[in-house]
């Protein structure tokens, strides 16, 4: 009777008979853990949709040269085909005979003469949807720069253009978001600027995470003097007012993508160190670390298999913030004029133009909304990733 009663209340799984084996191949092809993480990620609808929207925007912007460019994607003339968006051709390449008006310099496809020539010879031209690159100047504006988005032009604007010697409303090129004060198409600059911001943010995040996690892991795992000295160094380092130093350095060095990356990396790697170090200090005394030592597992394997995954979840919770703050820092430097070299497409520069030209709200609004939406998407994704990596999180 006793034994029977005991069985009744035994743990359920203990009583279930051991079933047959699963096919062994699944073990490596499927990886059920990552599959479950993915399922958990999908359950966070907001993060899931944010990921798709962000990926779509990012992939589109990666092909910016085929979307917004002042060079055609494809030209077929005289039995030859050309890809001007990728290759630079001399303008003489498009002429059948020697033409005194062409000098063999790089072709300017916005030049009416050249395009007329191609048309005359029966060439087929495929333009990108937006016929401006980030540095293309609009040749026939309806007003002094910055000029309004074309769809916003009113009858009054057209009359003004006609009376003051600007392009007539009928013969305008279409600027969806207007032009900036340099006469460049805002939409084209936005696409290129988004791409460079995200790429920059990703690079900075990845590099600073790798450096930060490594530094934190070393400190946490070895402790003692290593930890002590490193911590004091970081305390001094973080007490340096970083923005001023960045301004000074970027006025000495010629700012470019990689120079800025290096400068920002000097300070951004610190943000993860404390977190990872704390996780390692906590984790190295866990019983399962002891158990791994009792199994004879080596230090390196313990760090990578047992301690790092613990630290990674904490890292994951910080990554979206690091990513968005990287984007923000670049934007801030650009806004102040210490960022990417003049003429580069950048969201910060767009914002500073918006500030300088309050009468042209399309500049400021475009900058504001693009940055706000981009950062929101990143944060939503980050939240969902963080939840997906948390094994204790249950979704109901």
């Amino acid at each position: 009777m006793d034994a029977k009663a005991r069985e009744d209340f035994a743990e359920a799984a203990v009583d279930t008979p051991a079933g047959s084996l699963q096919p062994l191949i699944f073990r490596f092809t499927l990886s059920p853990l990552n599959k479950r993480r993915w399922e958990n990620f999908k359950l966070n609808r907001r993060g899931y949709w944010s990921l798709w929207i962000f990926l779509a925007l990012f992939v589109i912007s990666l092909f910016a040269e085929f979307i917004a460019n002042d060079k055609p994607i494809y030209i077929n003339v005289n039995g030859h085909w050309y890809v001007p968006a990728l290759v630079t051709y001399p303008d003489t390449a498009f002429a059948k005979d020697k033409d005194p008006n062409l000098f063999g310099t790089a072709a300017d496809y916005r030049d009416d003469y050249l395009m007329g020539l191609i048309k005359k010879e029966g060439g087929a031209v495929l333009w990108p949807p937006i016929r401006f690159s980030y540095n293309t100047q609009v040749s026939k504006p309806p007003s002094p720069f910055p000029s309004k988005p074309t769809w916003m032009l009113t009858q009054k604007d057209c009359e003004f253009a006609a009376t003051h010697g600007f392009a007539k409303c009928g013969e305008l090129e279409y600027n969806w978001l207007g032009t900036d004060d340099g006469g460049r198409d805002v939409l084209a600059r936005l696409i290129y600027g988004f791409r460079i911001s995200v790429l920059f943010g990703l690079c900075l995040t990845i590099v600073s995470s790798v450096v930060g996690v490594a530094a934190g892991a070393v400190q946490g795992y070895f402790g003692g003097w290593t930890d002590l000295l490193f911590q004091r160094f970081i305390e001094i380092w973080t007490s340096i007012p970083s923005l001023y130093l960045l301004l000074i350095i970027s006025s000495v060095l010629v700012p470019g993508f990689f120079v800025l990356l290096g400068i920002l990396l000097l300070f951004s790697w610190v943000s993860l160190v404390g977190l990872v170090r704390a996780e390692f200090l906590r984790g190295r005394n866990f019983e399962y670390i002891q158990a791994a030592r009792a199994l004879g597992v080596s230090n390196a394997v313990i760090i990578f298999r047992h301690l790092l995954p613990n630290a990674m979840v904490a890292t994951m919770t910080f990554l979206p913030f690091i990513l968005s703050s990287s984007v923000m820092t670049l934007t801030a430097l650009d806004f102040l004029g210490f960022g990417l070299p003049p003429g580069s497409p950048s969201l910060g520069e767009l914002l500073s133009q918006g500030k300088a030209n309050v009468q042209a709200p399309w500049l400021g609004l475009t900058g504001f909304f693009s940055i706000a939406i981009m950062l929101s998407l990143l944060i939503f994704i980050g939240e969902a990733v963080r939840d997906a990596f948390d094994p204790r999180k249950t979704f109901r």
Partner: protein
Amino acid sequence: MTGARETVLSIRDLSVAFGQGPGEVLAVDKVSFYIGKGETVALVGESGSGKSVTALSVMKLLPYPAARHPSGSILFKGRELLSMEEREIRRVRGNDITIVFQEPMTSLNPLHTIEKQIREILLIHQGLAGEPARARVIDLLAQVGIPDPEGRLASYPHQLSGGQRQRVMIAMALANEPDLLIADEPTTALDVTVQAQILKLLKDTQTRLGMSMLFITHDLGIVRKLADRICVMHAGKIVEQGPVERVFTAPEHPYTRALLAAEPKPDPAPPRPQAPVVVKTDDLKVWFPIKRGVLRKVVGHIKAVDGVSVEIRKGETLGVVGESGSGKTTLGLAILRLISSQGPVVFMGHAIQGFKFKEMRPYRRDMQIVFQDPYGSLSPRMSVSDIIEEGLWVHQPNLNAAERTQRVVAALKDVGLDPQARFRYPHEYSGGQRQRIALARALVLEPTFIVLDEPTSALDMLIQAQMVDLLRDLQKRRDLTYMFISHDLRVVAALASRLLVLRNGKVVEEGAAAELFKAPQSDYTRALFAAAFKLETAPEGVVAQ
């Protein structure tokens, strides 16, 4: 029975629900019982059966509004507590009804002195301050048996032992002479000898003050000793209640019967004086240096293990018992060479003392360990399959995937778990199942010797008995050698062929388990056994306070 007695607390149809919508969990399901004046009612059940939640809802200490009461009433001396205003209930809490929690380490504020913490209660409920308050605090501390109460007033909680902290908690609970004391597993975190003292203190105070007590526990031995009536809880319901004598002699519900039968059956492996020696230590010492001053000069040592000689023969189980801090676990870790020690350790004929980590690796396959805490000993971020096969990667790296899987599956079957579920994470398993996983991790290497460091103390009674049966069964099948570390003497009695009693790092007594249990030689061992088996306190000076 208690028909003539005045009823202090009467609970009718109490339910507690957590969460909302489809995720709602009914933690307590229509529970009814009452407590008479001066009566002790024990609430017994496994972890998760809803006993603590029931007690906390009497104090209205649940996390409202996440918790709700779909039905029920709690009448305390004729007043309904459930519908009471927060302001009013605060007057009841700590004054008429008080509670003593399980964990004496965390239920006192570490930043305040003991005097300040007890005075706070006196000030809030009685408006007592100044010299009279101080006198009352001293009086209370003396009542709960704190030696030199006046000198202890300025102590901080960390300066007291676990038992003393629990005494202070009881003093705080008694400060306003409550009508009802709720004791939520007050002795679970304490050593057996201290447990006996605390139980005696509670019993004495209760008779003296004539208060009622609601005692929550999973330990039936305590219930039998202490309670007048018992309520057995299972899955949120009270399945049986009645006077202690009746329930223990003639249990009606099958669950109660299962619980009473859950005592681990003593059937230890016999001592084998002829078998080859697996582990031998001679005068093993683990001393931690105490360093002082700027130059970190060594001024003394904490002698965690101080000259212990052990000999474990193949197929035997050496039970190591002692209070917390006696060096049991340290001894186990030192034998496995997981912490540094002095003195020779011989493992299966090889002197392994002084070996470096890498030199130890070939031996690790034969010596394994299972830890106490089933929640801390499994990496939460690895699947069960990964956890178990980790040792195989180290010791048999040339196994292919199929062979590894086979070994993992075999180990899981050995410990009675379903191998299908091996890709799940540890948190999806219960405590008992996790302990089986930890055991499977050790078994997959087919070791000779396993150190079991309190493998059952975090488990419920029923699961404990299962675990003991499993360990014994595995030992028989595989001819394993165990070193079983525990403070729970009933479990040790069920498994150990020989016994080693440790105190302050030194061996007090050693010998064949059967004889030692029958006729302990030293006073300390006798006190330990009396406290564990009969919950009796020892004469002063034999055990710690």
